[in-house]
C-alpha cells in the first residue's frame, strides 16, 4: 500500500471530481483524500496525528464552516502540523487573497485553471514539484 497521501479540501463537488480525474489521468500513484470543508480536514488531521503526515494539502479558500484562511491559521499554529506543505487552490486572483495567504504561511498559491487540459497540467506540475523535486520533512 502507498505510504503517502495527498489531501484536498474543497466544498465544490465538481472541482473535487475534476481534480481526482486529473490525478488519475496523470497516473499519479498517490492516495488522494477529499474533504468538503475545513472542519472535516482538521478533524481528519487531528485523528491521524500519529500516522505519517500527508505529502501536501490542496486547500480552497472559500468554504462553509471553516474556510481556507481559518484552516491555514490553525495548521500553521500547530507545531506538529506546521511542516505540511499547503498549496492554496482557489478561483480568486485577488491580490488581497494572495498576499494574506502567504502571510498566513501558505507554501504556494495556485489559481484554479479554467480548462481541463490546463488543470491536468497544473496537477502534474504540483505533484512533480512537491513529490519529486522538492525535499520535504520526513
Amino acid at each position, binding site marked *: 500500500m502507498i505510504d503517502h497521501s495527498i489531501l484536498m479540501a474543497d466544498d465544490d463537488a465538481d472541482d473535487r471530481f*475534476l481534480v481526482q480525474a486529473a490525478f488519475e489521468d496523470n497516473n499519479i500513484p498517490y492516495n488522494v483524500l477529499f474533504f468538503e470543508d475545513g472542519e472535516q480536514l482538521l478533524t481528519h488531521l487531528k485523528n491521524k496525528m500519529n500516522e505519517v503526515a500527508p505529502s501536501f494539502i490542496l486547500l480552497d479558500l*472559500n468554504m462553509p464552516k471553516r474556510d481556507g484562511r481559518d484552516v491555514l491559521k490553525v495548521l500553521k499554529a500547530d507545531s506538529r502540523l506546521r511542516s505540511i506543505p499547503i498549496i492554496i487552490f482557489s*478561483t480568486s486572483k485577488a491580490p488581497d487573497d494572495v498576499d494574506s495567504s502567504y502571510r498566513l504561511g501558505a507554501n504556494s498559491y495556485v489559481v484554479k*485553471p*479554467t480548462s*481541463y487540459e490546463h488543470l491536468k497540467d497544473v496537477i502534474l506540475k504540483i505533484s512533480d514539484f512537491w513529490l519529486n523535486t522538492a525535499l520535504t520533512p520526513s
Partner: protein
Amino acid sequence: MKLSSLRLLDRTLSELQLTWAIRFLFGISIALIVALSYSYHTINRELVYYAGRVDHTQEVQITIQKIASSVFITDYHLKNYLLLGGEDSKNEARQQLKILPVFTDLLDSLVDDNLAQNKRAQTLRGELRAFSRTVDSLVTHALPIDQASQLLSLRVDTKQLNRINQTLHDMTSVEILLMENRIKSRDNYEQQVYRFNWVIMVVALLFLSSSFILLDRELRRNKMYRLELENKIQNLNRSNEELEQFAYVASHDLQEPLRKIRSFSDRIVSQHAPSLPQEVRYMLEKIDVSAKRMQLLIDNLLSFSRIVRTNYSPKLTNLNTILLEVKNNLSETIKEKEVKIKSQDLPTVAAYPMQMVQLFQNLISNSIKYSKDGQFPEIAINYRLAHGTDIPTVNPSHRELQFHLIEFIDNGIGFSPEYADKIFVIFQRLHGRDQYEGTGIGLAICRRVVSNHNGYLIAEGKEGKGAKFCLYLPLQPIFN
C-alpha cells in the same frame, strides 16, 4: 399682493437673474437712502436757519421794546422833575439816558443784515440823540424855569417822543411781519422734515425687506440644492459600493460556473475524442469558444471596474517616459508591422502613472490594430496648450481652465463621424469579430482613465481617412 408677486418672481427668474435682482434692489435702496438723506440734510439746514431767524426777530423786537420802555421811563422822570423837581428824578432820567446808547448799539448790530430796518435804526439813533439832548438840557438848567419855556421844551419833547414812537412802531411792525413769514417757513420745513423722515423709513424698509425676502429665498434654495447634492453624493457612494460588490461577484461567482463548463467540455474532448462523432466534437468546440469569450468579457469588465477605484495617489508623471514604456511594451508589434511613431515633446503632468500607460498603450495599439491594409501604420503625437472653451463637451465649471492637448493622429481606416461617441461605450464595436478581434473595452478604459484625471478624450474620424484622438488634461490637476 406683494408676497404673491415676489413668489411669481421667484418662479420665473433664473438664479442669475435673481442674483441681479437682489443686487439691483440693494443698489437702488442704498442710492435712495443716500439721496433722501442728502435732501433731508438740506431741509434740516433750512429749518435750523429759519428757526435761527425767528429767534433773531424776537431778539430785535425785545431790543425795540427795551428802547421804548427806556425812552418812556426817561420821559416819565423828566416830567416828574419838571413838575415836582427833586434830585432823584433828575438822576433817574440821566441814568436812563446813559443806558439808551447800549440798546441802540445792540439794535444796530442786530438789524445790520436788513437794509430798510438799518435805515430806520439810523433814523431812530438820530431821533434818540435829539431826544437825549433835549432831556439833558432840560435837566441841566437850574429850576425853576418859567412856564412858557417849560411848555415849549415839553412840546419839543413830545414831538420827539412821537417821532421815536412812530419809528419804533414801524420797526416793530416790520419785525412782526418778518417773524410771521419766518415762523411760517420754519413750520413748513418742520413738516417737510417730518414727512421726509417717514418717506426715508418706508422706502428703506420696503427695499431692504424685499431684498431680504429674495436673499432668504436664495439661501433656502441653496440649502435645498446642498441637501439634494449631499443626497446625490450618498447615492453615488452607494452605487460605487454596489459596483465594487458587482466586480467581486463577477470575478468569483460568475467565473465559477464558466470554469466548470469549460473544464467539463474540455475533459469530454480530451478523454473521449476518438469515440465522439464529428458533429459533437464541433459543438463542444463551439461551447469552448463561447465560454472562452465570456471569460474574456468578464476579465475585461473586471479590469474596467478596477480603474474606477484606485488606491494609488497621483504622481508627477513625464508623459515622454510613459510613451517610451508603451513603445517598449509594444515593441514586438511595432517591429512586426513597421509602425512609425512621431512624437513631439510631451509635458509632465500629475497623474496615475499605471493608468497613463494603459491609456497610451490602448490608444496606440488601437491605431495599429485598425491600420489600412498594405500601408505601414503611422502615428503622430502632437502637443500644445488649449483652452477649456476649445473642448466641445466641456463641463461648464472647466470652461475657464487651461488644458494640455495631446493629439494622437493615425493613418488607419478611421471611422464614420457619427460613431465618434459610440466607440467609447464599453463592449461597443464598429466591426464584426471576424474582421477585428477584441471585446470593445480598450477605448472605454481610455475614457475612464481620462475622466479619472478630470480630462476629456474626444475622437474625430473620417471613414478611410484615419482617426484623431484629442486628449485634454487639465494644466492644474484636479483630483477629488
